[in-house]
């Protein structure tokens, strides 16, 4: 990033690349947008090249493509069951987008768009609204019994229903905050320790060693958070498809 700014948070700065305005709305193409476009391009390239040959004995690239497919397919089979099949393309897109976005953010001097709550919350809100609409379309009015657990005495309803509704509404928030906070904290921590390397002089070797280990951990987190985001989406979908 910029040479003069050594703040650990400078890496999260949004920069306008192509200023654009729709009405009074700032819709500029930013470094965040650029990374998202690149992410989609990388995923497309990865998948298209991987399935181009569709050989019976896959080469390395095709194996990777198939592994990512099987991974998400198994995940869905375990959490949603066969009824979730129509939604597989969506879940797979979510997983690949978050995973590749996280991984591209690990490239030095790049930008991690998942470290912005605006991005993760937009995804979580979309998932939340979509899953709720699926549930309403599938169960019609029966969906609203979701907020009134069976076997609860009537006089508890005024207390319980608001609590259940708040609990339901808090889903997109916890979903988005978890991804955003993990990415933000991890990348900030890396930068903070990187600052120690310079300022400690020779003793900076120790933070340097630590950073090497932390970078490895950061890759694990990048994968794990994509996985967690996906599995929670699957669980919400499962709730929508199979009401109690």
């Amino acid at each position, binding site marked *: 990033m910029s040479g003069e700014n050594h703040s650990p948070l400078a890496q999260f700065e949004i920069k306008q690349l192509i200023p654009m305005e729709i009405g009074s709305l700032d819709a500029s193409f930013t470094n965040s947008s650029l990374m998202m476009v690149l992410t989609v391009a990388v995923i497309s390239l990865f998948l298209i090249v991987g399935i181009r040959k569709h050989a019976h004995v896959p080469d390395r690239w095709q194996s990777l493509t*198939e*592994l990512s497919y*099987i*991974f998400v397919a*198994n*995940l869905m*089979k*375990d*959490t949603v*069951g*066969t009824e979730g099949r129509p939604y597989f393309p969506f879940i797979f897109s979510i997983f690949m987008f978050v995973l590749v976005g996280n991984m591209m953010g690990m490239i030095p001097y790049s930008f991690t768009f998942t470290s912005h709550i605006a991005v993760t919350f937009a995804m979580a809100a979309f998932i939340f609204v979509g899953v709720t609409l699926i549930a309403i379309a599938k169960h019609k009015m029966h969906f609203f019994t*979701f*907020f*009134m*657990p*069976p*076997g609860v005495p009537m006089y508890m309803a005024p*207390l319980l229903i*608001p*609590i*259940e509704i*708040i*609990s*339901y*509404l*808090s*889903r997109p*928030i*916890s979903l988005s*905050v*978890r991804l955003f*906070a*993990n990415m933000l904290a*991890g990348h900030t*921590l890396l930068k903070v320790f990187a600052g120690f390397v310079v300022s400690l002089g020779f003793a900076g070797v120790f933070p340097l060693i630590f950073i090497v280990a*932390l970078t490895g*951990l950061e890759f*694990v*987190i990048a994968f*794990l*958070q994509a*996985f*967690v985001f996906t*599995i*929670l989406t*699957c*669980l*919400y979908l*499962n*709730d929508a498809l*199979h009401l*109690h």
Partner: protein
Amino acid sequence: MTTDREKTGEKSGPSRFSEEKQGLADLDKRLNNIRNQQAPPSGLGQRIKAPPGNVLGLAFRVSVELLSALAVGTAIGWSLDLWLETGPWLMLVFIVLGGAAGILNVYRLASGFGYAAGYKPGDEDAEDADKADDKRQA
């Protein structure tokens, strides 16, 4: 720090339990599916689905659940107050309800009900409770 992130993946545990109650037929189907899979992919999947849990990770999840429910409750109360012009009262009520919802979220997270709103009547409550106990001891 390391452990903190690793634990996050552990949520696959409770999720798998919550859906196991779908019955023996489903179990049979899934068993067949697993048998049909090639060994390497399924091995990979199994390993990733059960990452080591840890206390810091659990703590992070719990705090996020608590805070998000509290934030939603407060926001609802505040906007109802603005709309109905009822002073601070509805917000005060909804802060308490939001806190209750947060605790409900945490309870579900810990007891293996998954993230479902509403209680899922299940025969696996005992097993879930065991899981929660294991987690607490860990």
